[in-house]
């Protein structure tokens, strides 16, 4: 294993963030903070029913209301759409992909489905008038349970399809069944992972401005300005070359803004019709029904093993809710976890089946981790069950099956780049003091205390840094996984970096500057990072899937080398030496053996712009673009432990400690990494203990506010103990891996395993997420003999 050392001046250090001054003083440019002259505001009328026929939409009263500019039904706008809101991931050849237009015209298919819009002179007037829209609905039967939706006679989400089954995707190794048949021990467990609502604190928001020749400028609270640009051409028929998408300051996303939404297309279509800028800002209540959800998966997971604890096969069968429509990558979310059902374990035989299922609920799509938390949860829960079945310590079972040689090609077909799984677990146990926890547990049990403690583990790896374009093509993803960087020296020596990534909290303005400053030997404060505007950053695939550093960050390295190469040629020409005789260190080129013959890179930049004395045929300027397509995903890994205290009388569970050791390759900014890990862990803990997007049987969302959905506050959570082991990725020159989702992937099973450990002496063996006081209390009662 190669343990990297900090080599650069800035990379590896906790440079404080360039982003902060703006955000801390109230000068951020979130979309809702902006208003253009003449702006009108859009309000969307949404279906209160999960499933209903739209019999009529009467807009007369709304149109007559004060300040109303226009109002439209889905039928009124039907001709504005040249294509459906796009789904970019048709995972199988025979996948069913029903069209999805920005407003429903005939049938509403989930609570919150848009059926009409009102445009008025102000936010308040638009909202007033929206209440005057009279929609006559014929309520129809709905189904929100993923298994019931597959039963014969279930209400159909898209009746013309004749089924709610969207697709079946399968990947299985040749000898899987034989391995299963030959096993000494087979353990099967069933799990339901409920819906999660991403809850970026900034709701979505859009402003669209359209010129007389269809020149579109759209400001959107999006993670994906480049994807939105080409999606708008698909939906509206306006060529991408006329579309400028700006993602200004964006207040968190977690996958929920990795999408192309009805309101974005509506705002452009209406701005085009009305000749005025159209603005829409989502209310939180809308966010809960009209922005994508995550998870909602029923799993059956099987491990086959020998008596000595060698896991020989794994089988996963999952029913995955799509919701009512396919959003941008809805069907592909399970696939992002498909290669993780062996986890960090060298399991030679593998079978994974996903069934995508339409339900009368908000569409699902990417929520932090996207497919990987689902896989890791069932794996790390079931390995505990297998350990129990084998009468073996679960950490010993994990260690016995860890991959130890890298790169390692998994039975699922992809190759792990690097790792040292034992090292992370070793470090975790050093920090944890398991003996003391077990002693405390024993004495509490001995005394019969009401408050019991438990410790739970999760050892994970994950697949991120999306993604090698060829692999994406092979799994039928519609576009590539590369990213771009442009580095531009200005004549007087300052540096502009244009990135194709689109940060919304991830600190790229700081960390990208660190990478470039080290490569070019300039100060981090002399590097400005530009992003989030397709007029500035033409080439990009945006920010999601923990891809930004492992793809866009590596593109910075490649662009830097191009800059250095050109600068070297300029210096060689001007100093009349061969390029090979030049050294470049600390931002200065010097002639080997004659250090007084030197030029700073800033001086080269000036010379390159002045162009008075360049080699024949060289273009003026010092600027380079690199587009980087990664050869592999990046594969972070780690070991996490949760310690919980459970009140066995009330079921109340408190997280006492959370210890995380992650290996995310070479660290660029440890402070930022820790921040990503803290946030990721919190969303995993939230899933384990608090959050659930729950529907009633009729498809009414029951958790409609942050207070009922239970986004945790500081008061529910402890401070975290985090550390790292460092195994550089051999697939890129920076040695980096992604970090944005590790915590979310690892945390939920660690916490639930801890709750079950706390209650194991009471005979409790299963509990469904979230482990609410009621569920814990019931589990204790039901386990009583």
């Amino acid at each position, binding site marked *: 294993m190669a343990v990297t050392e900090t080599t650069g001046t800035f990379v590896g250090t906790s440079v*404080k963030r360039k982003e902060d001054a703006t955000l801390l003083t109230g000068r951020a440019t979130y979309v*809702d903070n902006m208003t253009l002259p003449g702006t009108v505001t859009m309000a969307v009328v949404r279906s209160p029913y999960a499933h209903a026929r739209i019999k009529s939409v009467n807009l007369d009263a709304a149109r007559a209301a004060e300040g109303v500019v226009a109002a439209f039904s889905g039928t009124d706008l039907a001709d504005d759409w040249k294509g459906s809101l796009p789904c970019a991931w048709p995972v199988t050849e025979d996948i069913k992909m029903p069209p999805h237009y920005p407003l429903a015209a005939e049938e509403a298919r989930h609570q919150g489905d848009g059926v009409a819009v009102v445009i008025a002179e102000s936010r308040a007037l638009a909202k007033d008038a929206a209440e005057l829209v009279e929609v006559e609905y014929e309520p129809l039967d709905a189904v929100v349970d993923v298994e019931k939706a597959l039963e014969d006679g279930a209400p159909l989400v898209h009746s013309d399809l004749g089924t709610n089954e969207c697709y079946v995707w399968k990947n299985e190794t040749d000898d899987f069944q034989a391995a299963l048949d030959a096993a000494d021990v087979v353990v099967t467990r069933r799990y339901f992972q409920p819906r999660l609502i991403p809850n970026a*604190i900034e709701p979505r928001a859009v402003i669209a401005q359209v010129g007389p020749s269809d020149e579109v400028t759209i400001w959107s609270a999006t993670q994906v300005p480049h994807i939105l640009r080409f999606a708008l051409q698909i939906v509206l028929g306006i060529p991408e070359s006329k579309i400028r998408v700006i993602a200004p300051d964006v207040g*968190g996303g977690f996958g929920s803004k990795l999408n192309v939404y009805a309101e974005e297309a509506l705002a452009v279509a209406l701005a085009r019709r009305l000749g005025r800028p159209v603005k829409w800002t989502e209310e939180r209540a809308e966010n809960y029904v009209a922005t994508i959800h995550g998870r909602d998966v029923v799993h059956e997971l099987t491990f086959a093993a020998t008596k000595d604890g060698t896991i020989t096969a794994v089988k996963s069968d999952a029913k995955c809710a799509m919701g009512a429509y396919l959003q941008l990558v809805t069907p592909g979310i399970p696939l992002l976890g498909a290669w993780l059902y062996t986890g960090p374990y060298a399991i030679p035989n593998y079978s994974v089946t996903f069934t995508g299922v339409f339900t009368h609920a908000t569409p699902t799509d990417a929520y932090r981790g996207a497919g990987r938390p689902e896989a890791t949860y069932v794996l790390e829960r079931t390995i505990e069950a297998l350990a129990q079945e084998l009468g073996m310590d679960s950490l010993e079972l994990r260690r016995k099956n860890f991959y130890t040689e890298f790169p390692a090609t998994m039975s699922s077909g992809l190759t792990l780049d690097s790792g040292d799984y034992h090292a992370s677990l070793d470090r975790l146990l050093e920090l944890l003091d398991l003996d003391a926890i077990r002693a405390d547990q024993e004495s509490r049990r001995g005394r019969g205390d009401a408050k019991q403690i438990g410790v739970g583990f999760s050892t994970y790896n994950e697949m991120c840094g999306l993604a090698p374009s060829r692999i994406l093509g092979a799994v039928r993803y519609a576009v590539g996984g590369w990213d771009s960087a442009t580095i531009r020296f200005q004549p007087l020596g300052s540096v502009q970096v244009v990135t194709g990534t689109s940060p919304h*909290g991830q600190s790229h303005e700081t960390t990208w500057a660190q990478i470039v400053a080290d490569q070019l030997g300039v100060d981090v404060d002399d590097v400005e990072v530009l992003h989030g505007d397709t007029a500035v950053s033409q080439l990009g695939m945006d920010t999601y899937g923990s891809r930004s550093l492992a793809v866009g960050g590596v593109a910075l390295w490649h662009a830097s080398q191009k800059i250095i190469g050109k600068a070297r040629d300029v210096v060689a020409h001007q100093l009349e030496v061969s390029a090979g005789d030049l050294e470049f260190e600390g931002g200065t080129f010097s002639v080997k053996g004659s250090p007084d013959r030197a030029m700073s890179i800033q001086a080269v930049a000036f010379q390159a712009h002045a162009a008075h004395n360049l080699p024949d045929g060289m273009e003026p300027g010092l600027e380079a673009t690199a587009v980087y397509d990664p050869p592999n995903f990046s594969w972070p890994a780690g070991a996490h432990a949760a310690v919980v205290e459970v009140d066995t009388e009330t079921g109340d569970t408190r997280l006492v400690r959370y210890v995380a050791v992650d290996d995310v390759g070479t660290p660029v900014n440890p402070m930022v990494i820790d921040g990503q890990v803290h946030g990721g862990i919190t969303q995993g803990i939230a899933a384990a203990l608090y959050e659930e997007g729950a529907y009633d049987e009729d498809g009414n969302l029951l958790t409609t506010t942050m207070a009922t959905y239970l*986004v945790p506050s500081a008061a529910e959570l402890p401070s975290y103990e985090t550390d790292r082991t460092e195994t550089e990725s051999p697939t890129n020159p920076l040695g980096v891996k992604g970090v944005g989702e590790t915590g979310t992937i690892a945390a939920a099973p660690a916490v639930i395993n801890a709750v079950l450990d706390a209650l194991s002496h009471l005979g409790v063996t299963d509990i469904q997420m979230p482990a609410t006081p009621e569920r814990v209390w019931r589990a204790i009662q039901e386990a009583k003999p």
Partner: protein
Amino acid sequence: MRPVALTVNGVRRELSLEPRELLVYVLRERLGLTGTNVGCDTSSCGACTVLVNGESVKSCTVLGVQADGLEITTIEGLASNGELHAVQQAFHDHHALQCGYCTPGMVLAAVSLIESGEATDRDTIREGLEGNLCRCTGYHNIVEAVAAAAGVS
């Protein structure tokens, strides 16, 4: 419309407001103080927190007309003479913000908590910030920042 006079960041403002206008929209739309963010419209998230006569208040729970005669401090008014307030500086030093959307409200809630003397240890800081939600940081670094600004070791 009702006449209302309030002092915002030290400046007296005289406005004519609809009775239904929430203070947060008065600040954002009438006065152009967009540093105060709206996160939930339902007083759950605390993104809209401002100081009213020195105490933290969720400005989506107050009508503009109720602010008549009161002194409001928003995030724009917290730094003085180009120097960040100690809580703003601590948030920067401890990486207590990522996307920044909850930050103005979180900072003002923390200012109020510290000035009230209730930020005595990390537990009281966590309890005191219960009304302000952050989705990025997991609160760890927010608690560290507030502890530092409060002089809690």
